[in-house]
């Protein structure tokens, strides 16, 4: 099935006129793929989709959620977690409060990864953790902290790589049981995060395109991974500005492993250890 750029344009304009959501500056190709999937999954044509979202606000909300790509993992890309553990976070050990913001946290695996790491470093109690996403369903899932086991066996490998092993010194091995942080229940086919981790973060629905920082905080660490790949260059710049305005001097922005700051805002950061330090 093919979808004309004009149809995508019409869809974006319709959504914008009906709601606060604005996909104008999303990456074309990804948006197109998502739309094609939506038309296919709901057996709709572009016209019938437009009619349905105009008549039914709940359906519009549903479609907006379907547009977002929510794939995530526990300790996705272990190398960056190693860097956080051995290079980046040690510089923040003296702060009385460490303010952390996960922007585009999806179903929460990244937030739990951070809390587990902080706890191993003795920093969890001193950390305040905030997490946002445009999609309220994924936030609900994050609050529950229950994940399928069968498709996510890789989580345990990632946990081992980040928490148990030390790539900088292979003589060191931390024998940390999974049960310290989550219960692996193969019968019910799930991985359940422990209650003390569920209650810690503050989750808030937030659209990076249109909303302000919803928290009365300025951050020491902003984690925004695999979110801006869905934005075009102009929108990426707006988001970098939003982060910059809400970061302390010397604080750190962590992007996904294959993301980088292009354009004017690069000048406000210094890149070190795969992270961006606010100058």
């Amino acid at each position, binding site marked *: 099935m093919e979808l004309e750029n004009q149809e995508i344009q019409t869809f974006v304009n319709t959504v914008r006129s009906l709601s606060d959501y604005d996909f104008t500056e999303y990456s074309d190709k990804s948006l197109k*793929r998502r739309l094609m999937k939506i038309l296919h999954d709901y057996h709709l044509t572009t016209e019938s989709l437009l009619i349905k979202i105009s008549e039914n606000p709940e359906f519009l909300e549903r479609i907006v959620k379907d547009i977002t790509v929510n794939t995530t993992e526990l300790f996705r890309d272990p190398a960056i977690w190693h860097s956080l553990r051995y290079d980046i976070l040690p510089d923040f050990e003296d702060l009385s409060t460490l303010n952390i913001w996960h922007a585009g946290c999806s179903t929460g695996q990244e937030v739990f990864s951070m809390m587990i790491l902080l706890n191993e470093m003795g920093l969890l109690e001193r950390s305040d953790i905030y997490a946002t996403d445009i999609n309220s369903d994924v936030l609900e899932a994050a609050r529950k902290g229950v994940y399928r086991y069968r498709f996510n066996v890789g989580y345990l490998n990632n946990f081992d790589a980040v928490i148990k092993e030390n790539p900088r010194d292979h003589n060191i091995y931390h024998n940390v049981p999974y049960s310290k942080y989550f219960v692996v229940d193969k019968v019910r086919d799930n991985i359940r995060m422990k209650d003390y981790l569920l209650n810690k973060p503050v989750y808030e629905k937030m659209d990076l395109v249109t909303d302000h920082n919803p928290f009365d905080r300025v951050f020491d660490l902003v984690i925004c991974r695999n979110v801006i790949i869905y934005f075009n260059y102009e929108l990426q710049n707006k988001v970098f500005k939003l982060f910059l305005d809400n970061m302390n001097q010397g604080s750190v922005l962590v992007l996904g492993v*294959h*993301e980088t700051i292009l354009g004017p805002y690069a000048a406000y950061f210094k890149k070190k250890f795969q992270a961006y330090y606010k100058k």
Partner: protein
Amino acid sequence: MKHDALVIGGSAGSFRAIIHLLEILAIDLSIPVFLCLHRLKQARKGFEETLANIASLPLMEPFDKEKIKPGIIYLAPANYHMLIENKRTIALSTEDPIQYSRPSIDICFASAAEIYKQRLLAILLSGANQDGTGGIAAVNRHGGYTLVQDPTDCEITTMCESAIKLTIPNQILTIPEIIEFVSLL
């Protein structure tokens, strides 16, 4: 030059063919090359380096929004889909795997086909699943030129057999023939 870009897809059993192809690409090749290979999640850094050492042209895993330049080989990063956003830019995505694959050859080929249309050359090599068939179909549909490795020449036949069964590639060639084709680019 009849083509504005080259896409190569491969999976299990394609490694040796890939090495050969990368060795013989003309060093003054004036088009970009997009390489979409399935690989193990964990085998990450070493793979890029190995290929980069062999290739006649510079090879890199692109960042999201990386500018496309002629004479560069762009290797789809592990665990990401690589899409050709427009003639100037590459985009990455973490969308779910397609046909159990991320990077997906289908996504990479189809996105390139939309951009380069009849000026695209696509090569599909040995592999163990059905990824690539949709990609070859998309390239054909946009008038691009498609080469599929002869299944009798493949270490693992599934991928090319599937493509040949469901699409009509321009040519079905053995590795030596593909190499000759590419060396004349």
